[in-house]
Each structure stands twice: as C-alpha cells, then as structure tokens.
C-alpha cells in the first residue's frame, strides 16, 4: 500500500477538502466571495463527482476504514450532488455574513458525508459523524445576527453531542464484546455470541446516535428548532445530505454488523434484537411526526415534523431488511432529500420576498409567483406520496418491501401505521397548498412585497434577479428530478438495486 495508491482512492475527499480551502482563501483575499465562492465550490464538487466515477469498483483499505464499492460510490455521488444543489441556495442568501467561510464549512460537512458513506468500520464512521456534526452545528448557528439561528445551533449541538456520546459508548461496548471495529468482523463474531445484556445495551446505545441523526422520535426534539431557526441552506443540508448518509450507514451497521441479532418485529412474534427497536422508533416517529405537524403554522416547523414522520417511513425498509428493504430505504431517502432541498429553496425564496416563513407568508403565492407555487406543489405532493411524483413510487416500494418481510406478513401492523400516517399527512400538506393556491395575499405581506418591490425597482433590479437566479434554477431542476423519478423511477432504483451486493 503506497501513499500514492491511498491518495488515488481518497481523491474525491481530497478534492473536496482542497476546494474548501480554496474557497476560504478566496473569501480572505477578495470581496466578491458571494459570487466566486459558490462557483468555485460547485466546480470542485463537480470534479469530485468525476473523481468518484473514476474510482475502481472495489477496494478495501485498513480493514474497512475506506471501502470502495458500487454502493458507496453511488451514495458518494448522491451526497455530493445534494451538496451541489445546496450551494446555489447560499448565493441567493444575501443575509449571510462571511459566505466564503459558510461554503467552506458546508464542503467540510460534505467530506463528513463521504467518510460516513464510504466506511465500514465503526471508528471511522464515528469520525465521519463527528466531522459532519461539527460542520452542521456551525452551519445551523451561522447567522450571528439572528437569535433563532443561535438557538438552532445550540440545541442541535447539545442534543447532537449527547447522542454522539451514547454512540461512542455503544461502539466501545460492541468492540469489547467482538474484539473488532470492522463491521464485517463484528457480524462474524456476533453469530457465535448469544444476545447478552451487554450486547443489547451496546446495540441500543449505538442506534440512539443514528436515531438522533435521522430525527426519529423520541430523539427528534432538536429538529423543529434547527429547521426553523437555521439559515435556509443549512436547514436544507441538515435535512437532506445528513439524512441520506445516516440512513446508508445505519443500514450498513445493522444489516452487516448486527445482522445476526436481527430479532424480529413481527406482530405476536417479536424477538429481541435491533429490528423491534427500529420498528418501535418508526411507529412512534410516524404517529408523533404526523400528528404534531397538523398543529404547525410555520412551514419550516411543519417540514421538521414531517421529516420526523418521513424518517419513520424510511426506517420501515431497514426493519424489513434484506436487499429489497434496504434498496427501498435508499431510494426513499434519496428522493426525500431531493424533495426537501427543493421545498427549503422555495421557503427561502418566499422568506426573502415576504420576510417570513409562516403559513400566512405563503398566502396567494400562486398569484405572485406561479413558478414557485407550482414547484412547491410538486415537492409537497411528492412528500404526501401522490403520483406521478417520486414520493408515490418511493412509498409503494418501501411499503411493499416491508409487507413482504417477516413470516406471514408480520410487519403488516407497521405498514398499516405508516399508511395511516401518510393519510394524516395529506391534510397538512394540502393546507399549505390551499394557502398558496386559494388564499389571497394578505394585506401586510402584499404591502411589504410591494414596498420591497419598489425599493428593489429603484435600487438594483438586475442585481436582485441575478441573485435569485441560482436558487430559481435549482428549484426548477429539483422539481424536474422529482417528476422524472416519479415517472421513471427505474433510473435510480435500478442503479441502487444493482449496487447492492
């Protein structure tokens, strides 16, 4: 193993790190970081995607610390693409101080994503989690002028670091029992071990950290405040990239590492293991997320609670296990991430226009901007799981995989809860769309919009539209992706299925 070889295999990560440093330098040397930074970052990420494509199809370094496999490469690309979709949102946010630093931290977070996705060894996974987590705490708290942003960052940090401690403790117990931190070796060792209390504690503690990352109830408490208070691109990144990577890793840990202690979540036939734990988390998240979302009047909080519920749906595939269940989970979480970045981008555009993201700020959006309204309809209806959008196929795939798993349709109870939850969820998605399409622009927002508009008209019309352009283009692109993945889901599903061993 030469260093050259290592560098070649870790090239994508290296490129992203170099890009982050380059963006930092630009921010320090020129005053035009807001324009140059995103461009350089986008270029760097694009090059990193190419580098991932050029990787060999299989490699394994240091006992699983860096694993290159079709699955890992695919999800490195997806994570980078999600970061790429987040970058244009930054350039539209004029309120952010120090955009160069912001983008650099965002890129470092992306490196965390890649490490998470690309590793099958617990210590490396933990390092990835921490790198990602630390970047996200900073991103959440980045808007120093906004007290909500600080609150979001602090809450996210406190919950996150506690969860990390749990995970680390769990990992150490697992290591003590199995004598290894590589997932494959743990999996082999666990086949010979009975499910003793210490192992159970280790598994539960490890899972808590991930439950926190995917905002599964009851570890979701940070989510509403982080989603609501953090700057829009941070919230989008937390909701998308971080979630996708966490599900990939969670799936790998439980299916490869803890495979032998699967247990069973079948109704009337529960067997201790990790699957009943995840099933309980899923059921609780679906019910709590959907019902609490009903009461929200802030669109970002609503998205946060719906994210809790969607985390629950996505867990169904992991509980179901197997190739089909895992691929359903991966498909669902990817389409969900795409949808959510889009939804947050629309929220950001509305927020810049009306100064808020409460439900009444969206009133009459269809009359003000048919484009944003149509895209929001696409994103929200996909979240609700209506055809012909990605969420519809995602749910079908996920629920049928869960239904198939277990003996004699033992997961029927979980599928029924999920279907019930998705029925409830339609109400709050429709409420938002009703406000957008049926509501009249309220007096204050209209006035504000008008004064904004007139101010803009007199000051810098061109600059404002030019600033809005990247985020509008991203929204259009993401809406198109959601539509295409709904009509031709096999473009992504076939890739995911083929990449699974």
């Amino acid at each position, binding site marked *: 193993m030469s260093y050259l070889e290592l560098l070649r295999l870790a090239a994508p990560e290296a490129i992203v790190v170099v890009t982050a440093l380059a963006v930092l330098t630009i921010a320090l040397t020129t005053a035009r970081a807001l324009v140059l930074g995103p461009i350089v970052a986008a270029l760097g990420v694009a090059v990193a995607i190419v580098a991932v494509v050029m990787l060999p199809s299989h490699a394994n370094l240091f006992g699983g610390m860096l694993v290159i496999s079709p699955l890992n490469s695919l999800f490195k690309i997806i994570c980078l693409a999600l970061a790429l979709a987040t970058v244009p949102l930054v350039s539209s946010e004029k309120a952010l101080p120090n955009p160069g630093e912001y983008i650099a931290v965002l890129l470092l977070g992306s490196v965390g994503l890649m490490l998470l996705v690309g590793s099958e060894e617990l210590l490396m996974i933990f390092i990835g989690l921490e790198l990602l987590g630390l970047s996200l705490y900073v991103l959440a708290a980045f808007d120093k002028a906004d007290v909500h942003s600080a609150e979001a960052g602090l809450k996210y940090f406190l919950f996150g670091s506690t969860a990390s401690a749990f995970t680390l403790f769990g990992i150490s117990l697992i290591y003590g029992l199995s004598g290894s931190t590589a997932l494959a070796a743990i999996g082999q060792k666990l086949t010979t071990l009975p499910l003793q209390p210490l192992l159970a504690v280790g598994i539960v503690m490890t899972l808590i950290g991930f439950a926190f990352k995917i905002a599964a109830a009851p570890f979701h408490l940070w989510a509403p405040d982080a989603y609501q208070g953090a700057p829009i691109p941070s919230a989008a990144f937390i909701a998308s990239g971080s979630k996708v990577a966490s599900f990939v890793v969670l799936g790998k840990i439980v299916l490869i590492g803890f495979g032998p202690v699967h247990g069973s979540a079948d109704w009337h036939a529960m067997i201790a293991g990790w699957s009943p734990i995840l099933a309980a988390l899923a059921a609780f998240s679906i019910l709590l997320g959907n019902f609490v979302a009903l009461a929200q009047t802030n669109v970002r909080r609503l998205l946060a609670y719906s994210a809790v519920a969607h985390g629950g749906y996505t867990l169904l595939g992991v509980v179901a296990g197997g190739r089909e269940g895992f691929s359903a989970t991966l498909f669902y979480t990817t389409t969900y991430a795409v949808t959510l970045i889009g939804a947050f981008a629309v929220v950001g555009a509305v927020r810049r226009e009306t100064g808020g993201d409460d439900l009444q700020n969206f009133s009459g959006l269809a009359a003000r901007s048919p484009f944003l309204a149509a895209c929001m309809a696409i994103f929200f209806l996909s979240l609700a799981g209506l055809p*012909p959008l990605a969420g519809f196929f995602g749910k079908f795939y996920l629920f049928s995989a869960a239904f198939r798993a277990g003996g004699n349709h033992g997961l029927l109870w979980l599928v029924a809860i999920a*279907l019930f939850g998705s029925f409830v969820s339609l109400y709050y998605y429709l409420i938002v769309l009703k406000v957008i*399409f049926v509501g009249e622009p309220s007096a204050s927002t209209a006035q504000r919009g008008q004064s904004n508009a007139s101010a803009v008209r007199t000051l810098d019309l061109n600059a404002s539209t030019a600033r809005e352009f990247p985020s509008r283009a991203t929204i259009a692109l993401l809406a198109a992706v959601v539509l295409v993945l709904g009509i031709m889901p096999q473009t992504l599903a076939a890739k995911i299925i083929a990449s699974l061993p």
Partner: protein
Amino acid sequence: MIAWTIYITFAGAIVLLVLPRVFARWIAVVTATAGFAVSLATFLCDDVDLAHFTTIVRVPWIPALGMNYHLALDGISLTLVLVTGIVAISAVLFSWDVTDRANEFFFWLLLVVGGSYGVFLSADLFLLFLFYELVIVPKYFLIAIFGSTNKEYGAMKLTLYSFFGGALVFLGIIAAYVSGGSLDLNQLAQFQFTPQLQSWAFPVLFLGFAVLAGIWPLHTWAPTGHVAAPTAGSMLLAGIVMKLGAYAALRVAMNLFPQGFQMWRTWIAVLAVIGIVYAAAVALRQRDLKFVIGYSSVSHMGFVLLGLATANVFGVSGAVLQMFSHGVIGALLFAVAGRMIYRRTHMRELDALAGMNLRDALPFAAFTFVIAAAASMGIPGFSGFAAEITILIGAWKSYPLAVWITGAGMVLVAAFTLRALKRTFFDVDGESAAPSSASAARTDARQMPAPPAQIASSAERSIHLEPITIPEKLGAGLLMFATLAVGLYPKFLLDRIQPAVEAMRFLK
C-alpha cells in the same frame, strides 16, 4: 387506438398551461371531443375482443419490480371510457363561462378526465393505482379554487375521504402484489390467493374503492363535495369519479379475490340497500337543490353496489350499465342545478327557487330538468330504467328481500325527484316564496353578489335571466341523447358488457 384517449387528454392539459388563456376553453373542448371521438371510434369499429380484458399496450416500465405500462380493454372499460368522454365534453361546455384562471381550471379538469381514462384502461395494478390517486389532487384544486358554498371544507373533506380510501386500497394492492408475485391484472386473476388472505384483503380493497363510489356510511363526502364544487366539478364527480371507485372495486377487488367476495358480498348488499334507502330519505328532506342531487347520486350508486353484490351476470352487467347511466344523468342534473339555475339566480334553496317562476324564465332548463328527473326516477325509455331493472332482476336471484326494500327506496327516489322538480320549476302558487330572501342570505351572503332586487321580490312573476347559451344547449343535448339512446336500446351496451362480465372469475 383507445390508449390515445389518455395521451390526448394529458397533452391537452399541458398545452393549456403553455398557451394564453383566451384559447383555454377551446383547447379543452377540442381535447375532450378528441378523446370521446377516439373512444367512439373504438366502440363502433369492433376490432378488439371485448369479451376478455385484451391487452392493447404493454411496455416494460419498472422491470426491477415487475411493473409494466400495460393497458387493456374489454366491454366494461369501454363503456366507462365512453361515459367519461361524454361527461368530459359536456363538463367543458357547461364551463364555457369560466374566465377567472381559466387555464388552471381546464388544466385540473383535464387531469381528472385523463386520470379516469387511465384507471378504466389500466391492466397493471400499480398503473391503475397511480391513475386512481392522480385524480385526487386535481379534484381538490378544482373545488377549493373554483367552488362555491363552503368550498374549502367540501374540497378537504372529499380529498381526505378519497385519500383514506386510497390508503386502504394501497394496503390491499400491496397484499395482492406481494402474495401473487405480479402486478398484471390478468395474471393475478388466475392466481389462487389463500382464503385467509382473501378474507381480509378483499374487504380492505373493496371498501377502499367503495369510498369513492359513495358506499354508506362513507358517503358523506359526496353531497358536501358536490355542493361545494363548481358545476363542471360536480359533473365530473358524479359522472366519472364515483365510477372510478365502483369500476375498480369490480375490476380489482372482486376479480382478484373471488372467495373473499363470496364471504363478504351479503354485507355489501346490506350496505348498498341501506345507502339506497337512506340517501333517498335524506334527499327528501333537503332544502338545497344541489344537496338533493348529491344525495340522489349516493342513492343511485347504491344500485351499482347492489348490482355488484349479486354476483350474477344480470346484476353485475346492470351495475356497469348503471355506472354509465348515472354518469350521464348525474352530470345532467348537476348541469341544470349548477350552471343553468345557480349561475343565473345565485340561489339553490328550493324555497327561494319556488318563488321565481323559473319555468317561464328558463324554459330550456325546465325541459332539461324534466328529462333528467324522469331518467333519474327510472321511467322506462331512459337509461336509468334499463340499468335498474337489470340490477333488480339480478338481485331477485340472490337477495329477494333486498329487492323489496329497494322497491320502497325507489318510491322515495321518485318522491324527492318530483319534489325537487316541482319546487324548482312548477311551484306556481308561490306559497313559500316569502322566506326566499332570508334563506338566500343565509347560504350565500358572503360568497355571491346579492341577487338583483327584482329576484328577491316575490311579487315579480316573470324575471329576466340571461337566456340559456348555445354551449349549454349542446352539452345538455349530448347528455339527453346519451340517456335516451341507451334507454331505448340498452342492448347496444349490454351486448358488450355481458360477455366481459361472464369472463370474470367470481361468477365461476
């Protein structure tokens, strides 16, 4: 060829969004007519085997999960495609006066129509479900944006009921898919599902679909939704959307799970009979013309469900014929109530209408309503009679008691229809003209501009209302022709429906 109904309709919807709004209604009417022309051409040139669910298009779609873009046709689906075309054209004609956000209006309208064509032609379970769910959201916007009385509530209620049904259907479809290992309806229809699975999957699936068909006690979305919807919306709801549920219940639930159907069919018959009688009784007590018609829809759809529950050729064929018949008649009734009367008078209260002497003011409306009422009551010569008598013959073989009760229900149907007819057009003595202004104020004071003074005044006998326009006459003429043609010569449709029904598994 008939697959083009789907493509034309969706293409028309997309074109609508792109072109300026002055063209909107023309694009819509051309699209709807083209769709109908395609289905009529297929109907007349018999080159497809209508006795079996014959594949017309089959393209791999999501091979990894066994989903195909698979369309097929038999006599049942062809009948429903036809009624969809007829109702679509007349719905567009009756919306000729929509000018506010017209593009959007016709866009949602065509999505409902296109999705319905898709459901009736799908031979792949996933594709069918996709089209079925595709219809939900356009309905919501059609009502919530363009509706009238209590529109947001009505739209939300309707949508949640549909989606609730959709969730049940989802479960049933997954069960069929996972156990049968396929999504192809023809293959699944050959598969032997275990009795244990059928015993729970059938009611889940059937009930899920039947929500949309207005099964008692899950029917309450129908009157509320119909009343809240704009005229074209109610026409589509009564004419097409309620048929989606009944059709899918027949095509999917009954055909895939015959044993489950045998276990549960008595309960379906019970619910159907309750629905017929109960809705008719409720309609008798309604004060709002659209509510009367809304409950009459539930009552007539009860006949469809009763026909399905009989599980014999007569009953099921009659049910399909009744889907056609009620599609036409329901659309006609709502067209009169919504477009001809309500748009002009801004009133739907029977008491208020009674004082307005509409027979003289709108003679064409009166004529149309008489025809529609006669068809709705089941007077021989109209399609309603042909369909209901076939259902009752079928029911006599399976559930004689149900026929007796239904017979009593039909008296109630006649009673409320005649009451509505008399109160709306022929109440010359004006005994109840007094509360008109008060009740009108109660319903629509906030939404509608106050009616002209002379309308409110009950003394004025002959009021001037905008005369019936040409598009309205065309639309009404088309629907009246359809109900008469099928009523006078039902064999025309039945010859195509019956072989298709005989091929279904639950009869064997």
